[in-house]
């Protein structure tokens, strides 16, 4: 029918893009998210200085307010500097990179665990289902941040001290990933239970395909669209969880500060008048989490035909 149209033209003509164009909030969120992601990826090019390079730091530059020349060195910083003379804008850009990296990989981990367990529970049913879903039920009765702290604490205890800082980011990812898998598992289980009764699954069983092949090749592609929505919303949660953990001091190490670490540092100076050290990382985190969340909400509404 529209064979001569390119994929891009079809996308521009789709309901999906039409919905997107009609929602200014979504467009703004999308622009913010894309800008922040690009900044994080291109941090080396975008950031004025490298905040992790101790050689470029000058302690005399400490506590420079935004847009004002430093009293000693005369240098000016767009967003000011922190106590060690680190340019805040650069620190935020690099912190964004850590936050986004941890958030994204944690969501991918949570998605992998949740989708696998959900598929298994939904397809097998019986006691497999009962065991997996009861574990999920127990887990949601704890706040996920508590679970993350618990996993983080256990992992730190098990790791040799010299590896702790090196593996802190990995541990953080595992902790957040393990604490956010439940919504994925529940949704996928529900859709799987519907899909497995459909006749195309019977047809696959008829030619003698095994359960794992049916789950992965036939059912999985049909349960993924709600997963996309949950992944987006969970991304916002994971970024906030990372910031919370880092704020509590159990997350990203000071050598690799994330937005949460920057907020924790800034909070020490809030009442002594250096407001900018706290404010700018916090606003960045807020903008990122809010935009991702709004995008997720829009995606959920758009992909759910019953809400139209």
């Amino acid at each position: 029918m529209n064979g001569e149209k390119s994929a891009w033209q079809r996308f521009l003509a789709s309901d999906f893009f039409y919905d997107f164009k009609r929602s200014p909030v979504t467009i703004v969120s999308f622009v913010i998210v894309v800008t922040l992601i690009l900044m994080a990826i291109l941090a080396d090019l975008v950031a004025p200085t490298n905040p992790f390079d101790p050689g470029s730091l000058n302690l005399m530059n400490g506590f420079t307010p935004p847009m004002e020349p430093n009293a000693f060195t005369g240098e000016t910083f767009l967003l000011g500097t922190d106590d060690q003379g680190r340019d805040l804008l650069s620190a935020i850009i690099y912190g964004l990179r850590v936050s986004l990296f941890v958030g994204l990989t944690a969501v991918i981990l949570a998605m992998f665990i949740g989708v696998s367990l959900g598929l298994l529970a939904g397809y097998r049913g019986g006691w497999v289902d009962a065991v997996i879903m009861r574990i999920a039920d127990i887990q949601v009765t704890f706040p996920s941040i508590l679970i993350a702290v618990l996993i983080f604490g256990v992992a730190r205890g098990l790791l040799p001290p010299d590896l702790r800082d090196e593996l802190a980011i990995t541990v953080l990812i595992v902790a957040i990933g393990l604490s956010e898998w439940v919504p994925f598992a529940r949704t996928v289980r529900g859709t799987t239970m519907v899909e497995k009764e459909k006749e195309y699954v019977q047809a696959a069983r008829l030619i003698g395909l095994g359960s794992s092949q049916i789950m992965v090749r036939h059912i999985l592609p049909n349960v993924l669209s709600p997963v996309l929505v949950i992944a987006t919303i969970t991304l916002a949660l994971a970024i906030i969880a990372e910031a919370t953990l880092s704020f509590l001091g159990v997350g990203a190490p000071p050598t690799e500060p994330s937005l949460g670490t920057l907020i924790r540092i800034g909070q020490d100076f809030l009442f002594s008048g250096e407001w900018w050290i706290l404010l700018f990382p916090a606003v960045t985190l807020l903008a990122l989490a809010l935009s991702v969340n709004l995008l997720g909400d829009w995606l959920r509404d758009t992909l759910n035909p019953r809400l139209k």
Partner: protein
Amino acid sequence: MDEFIRIEHLNQRFDLSEPWLARMIYRRPKKFLDAVDDVSFGIERGKTYALVGESGSGKSTIARMAVGLLTPTGGRVLIDGQDLHDGSLSVAEQRRIRQRLQMVFQSPYASLNPRWRVGSILAEPLRVFRLVDGPQAEQARVHELLEQVGLSASDARRFPHEFSGGQRQRISIARALASKPDFIVCDEPTSALDVSVQAQVLNLLKQLQRDLGLTYLFITHDLAVVRVMAHRIGVLKSGKLVEEQATEKLIESPQSDYTRMLIRSAPRIHRAAS
């Protein structure tokens, strides 16, 4: 009489009991439903046997046991004398038997995976049973199958949602044919289609039976369809076979009250018979 499939004293009992804990607390006994109760019949090679009956009479349950999707709780399904549900068969033997049995499903909307292209849907049985060597042979066979059911080779690149109900049922039939089966169970293959499209699909099934010598087990509640398709008819009621006859004989002189009622309630066939 050369029978392809013989069904002997088939039983299916479903456990409808509440969960164990609820039974213990409320002191309720276990509950069972005999969906299929001591059903026996055979189908001659190259012929069509129709099972008719109201909803819940056990037609589809028998169909699923006949192709091995469901294990009977009693009785046997013999394919060319071999017990389909015999646990002692080797994997290779089971595979060989399974390859000869296929099914066309009721809903043309649920029976094709919506995320797969038609070409992949048809190629899957070819790969699983290793019927073709290499991608070229596979593609050639897929095109051949599509043409066999009256679609065009270029349809292989399209997705199921791009087709109408009748066309999808043709794709379903092509998939069933892919593994070169001898026996196809048609589980109400036309009940979701328009009357005009129904006739086309039925004609296709008949033509394929003539060309390929297929044996059909036809599940339906539509006596008009039965009359066109079936050589023999079995009437099911609450899981029991109440009557079994050659098609014309059953419609002209039904023996049981239940069959008479079924025929009377089918408007088209009633007019034709009177």
